[in-house]
């Protein structure tokens, strides 16, 4: 039962709901948070900004009781408080919506919600409680559906409903819009506005600066585990916020001039395929064509067939007939990934660790993994590690990969640097066709800009490129045409200069494919 909302108070003059004082968290020799001071007031939406690895997640996990600070303390309504577990945090009035949802795919919506409620709550009463939240906040959920059948937006609504049922005074949202369509995000913002009006405090983690400007009253910016600034995001430009986050100006991607497209290089003709995964998405009748020099962007919410499409294009899953996939005019549907690489195609999967690179292998060994296809890695039938090492060095130089030691294991590199390395490994081959899935996912801004520039430059040299991404800004920045994948169906690709964000949003939600 949601009780009367906390009284709305003037931001700034009232005592803060939460105060962090000198909060420090060390993992061994690594300092994730260093003497953080932060005040959250009732009725305030407070943004926590920072690059990946800046310490945002560690900080909110500390507030939520998942992590104990090394030193420093937390005040709750002016009282010094130690939160030992998430259960204690929830009892205090802290709710958290996780970035990677903390949901259980094979359980029902009601069961998922029950798990976060106090033990005294009876399972039979959950559907009624869900209906109550639906009425109050317009969050509609079907209690008996299993989570794996739901879209990302619906899953997030479960997380939010789960928090709201506990009547939180502080709601923490970790990158909540990264998996939503623009329309779903707008619905979320309206809910948040309403929660704010009820006098709840909201801590909003994001790296989407437009959202932060739209939604937040104050912003705290973290860099390398320290607070570098606290400001009013409405008074700042997206550019100045980005500069605060990164500590330097981020370069814009330079588009190539006078683009000329050549003959089709990647052609997919009515590809249909079942997913090998348990809860995967089947591909339905996908057709596309990318010409030399062109970049095709494929937008879509996570889990709508992107992974399956990548697997089909790369040959990790082989098609039934040769003609459905063609590279450079040759039918390649029955070929495996090595044979496709020998046709001058290159592939960069989404997951860096464990898919694009073997985490425990040295960088030179990781070079061999994809480069063995062109035969340059062997001498007299044996692997030529001297050649591999020099090639790794070339990639490291050309893509400014920062690393420790001469030839370290892949897992020791930061996300951005490893991504630059695996992208560089494929691009330095000068492929005539490149398929790249989530090129800058979880990569810091500077590395993301470098990767996008490399993709644009490759296309300018005459390669056909497919970029699968959930980041619409990225797709608009580098694509010539954009198509949308929704539940395994691909919309018609349209010029990026013509298609609007709203249209893409509707396609992402499956609206335009219905008729």
């Amino acid at each position: 039962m949601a009780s009367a909302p906390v009284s709305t108070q003037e931001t700034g003059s009232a005592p803060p709901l939460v105060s962090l004082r000198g909060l420090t968290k060390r993992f061994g020799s690594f300092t994730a948070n260093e003497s953080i001071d932060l005040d959250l007031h009732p009725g305030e939406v407070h943004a926590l900004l920072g690059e990946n690895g800046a310490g945002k997640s560690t900080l909110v996990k500390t507030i939520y009781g998942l992590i104990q600070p090394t030193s420093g303390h937390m005040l709750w309504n002016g009282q010094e408080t130690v939160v030992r577990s998430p259960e204690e945090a929830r009892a205090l009035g802290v709710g958290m919506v996780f970035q990677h949802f903390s949901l259980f795919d094979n359980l029902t919506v009601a069961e998922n919600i029950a798990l976060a409620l106090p033990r005294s709550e009876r399972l039979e009463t959950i559907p009624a409680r869900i209906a109550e939240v639906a009425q109050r906040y317009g969050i509609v959920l079907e209690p008996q559906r299993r989570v794996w059948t739901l879209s990302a937006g619906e899953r997030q609504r479960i997380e939010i409903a789960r928090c709201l049922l506990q009547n939180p005074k502080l709601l923490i949202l970790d990158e909540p819009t990264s998996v939503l369509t623009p329309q779903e995000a707008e619905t979320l913002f309206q809910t948040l506005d309403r929660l704010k009006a009820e006098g709840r405090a909201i801590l909003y983690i994001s790296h989407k600066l437009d959202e932060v400007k739209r939604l937040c009253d104050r912003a705290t910016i973290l860099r390398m585990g320290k607070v570098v600034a606290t400001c009013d995001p409405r008074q700042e430009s997206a550019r100045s916020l980005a500069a605060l986050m990164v500590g330097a100006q981020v370069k814009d991607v330079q588009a190539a001039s006078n683009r000329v497209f050549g003959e089709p290089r990647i052609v997919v003709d009515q590809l249909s395929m079942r997913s090998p995964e348990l809860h995967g998405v089947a591909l339905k009748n996908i057709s596309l064509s990318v010409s030399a020099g062109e970049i095709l962007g494929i937008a879509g919410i996570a889990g709508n067939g992107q992974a399956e499409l990548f697997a089909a294009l790369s040959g990790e899953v082989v098609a039934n007939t040769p003609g459905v996939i063609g590279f450079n005019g040759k039918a390649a549907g029955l070929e495996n990934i090595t044979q496709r690489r020998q046709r001058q195609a290159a592939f960069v999967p989404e997951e860096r660790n464990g898919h694009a690179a073997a985490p425990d292998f040295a960088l030179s060994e990781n070079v061999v993994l994809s480069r063995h296809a062109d035969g340059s890695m062997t001498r007299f039938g044996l692997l030529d590690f001297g050649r591999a090492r020099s090639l790794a060095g070339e990639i490291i130089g050309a893509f400014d990969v920062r690393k420790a030691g001469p030839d370290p294991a892949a897992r020791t590199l930061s996300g951005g640097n490893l991504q630059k390395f695996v992208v560089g490994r494929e691009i330095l081959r000068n492929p005539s066709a490149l398929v790249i899935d989530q090129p800058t996912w979880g990569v810091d801004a500077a590395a993301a800009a470098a990767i996008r520039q490399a993709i644009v430059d490759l296309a300018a040299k005459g390669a056909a490129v497919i970029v699968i991404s959930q980041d619409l800004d990225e797709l608009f920045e580098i694509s010539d045409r954009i198509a949308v994948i929704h539940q395994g169906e691909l919309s018609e690709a349209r010029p990026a200069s013509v298609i609007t964000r709203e249209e893409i949003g509707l396609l992402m939600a499956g609206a335009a494919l219905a008729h």
Partner: protein
Amino acid sequence: MNPDIIELVLITIVTAATPLVIAGVGELVVERSGVLNLGVEGMMIVGAAIGFAAAFLTGSALIGALAAIASGMLMSALFGLLAIGLAANQVASGLALTILGLGTAGLAGAGFVGQKRDSVPHLYIPGLSDLPFVGKLIFGQDPFVYLGVALVAGVAWFLRRTRAGLTLRAVGENHASAHALGMRVRRIRFLAVLFGGACAGLAGGYLSLVYTPFWSPGMTAGRGWIALALVVFASWRPWRVYAGALLFGGATVLQLHAQAASIGLPGQLLSALPYLATILALVVLSARDRRGSIAPGSLGAPFVPDR
């Protein structure tokens, strides 16, 4: 065929199925919590040896059964320490447990080879147990048979209807999410493993106290492995474990009758029949269920609480 003979065959099928049911439903709980304990065979054989020894020395079948349970739990605690406490590889730890169990049981039972004791008394309700055809089948079994049914019903109810059961399923489904919500993943898993060990020990005790009331090394004869396979074949659902155990028990009993009737097939082939039937059922079901199977999401993955 004579209805009495049919009843007799059905009774032997049910008793042959009972150790599989008890061990299988225990392992089901373990796997639902996300742990794969391949040591069922080892825990069973230790339960059989210790159970028989305790019953022989004290003359009490109840003490024997309790000792079998305790020894199974002790074995599983060792596994839990390795696989949960130290996050060791579950497959390797489980196989090691089986090998350890076979050796330990041989050692503990060495002085009891060739000894015999009476089986436990069967239920007798005047009137009901004398009913034709169903009397002995339903009202005249040994207590373990009823215990097996009660265990299956209890586990089914626990998983489906209680909050603790829901928590256990959640831990098995996604341990990272469960941890993020503040559930004590390792504690829950350890308790599940102990329950599995108790069941496996009891199933072993059934063999040496009731089914064939003596001890001989290797007397579990791969039943622990069959119980493991049944859990998968049953898609981790308790009542399907019961059905699968009846199928396997049925095949075991029928092949014995077929051998006795000497139908002209080699005995070795007939002995392999139950295993073949189980493999076949597994293949058919898993091919059909491939996309809809409900294997617990974190099954077999060691859990290490991160930052």
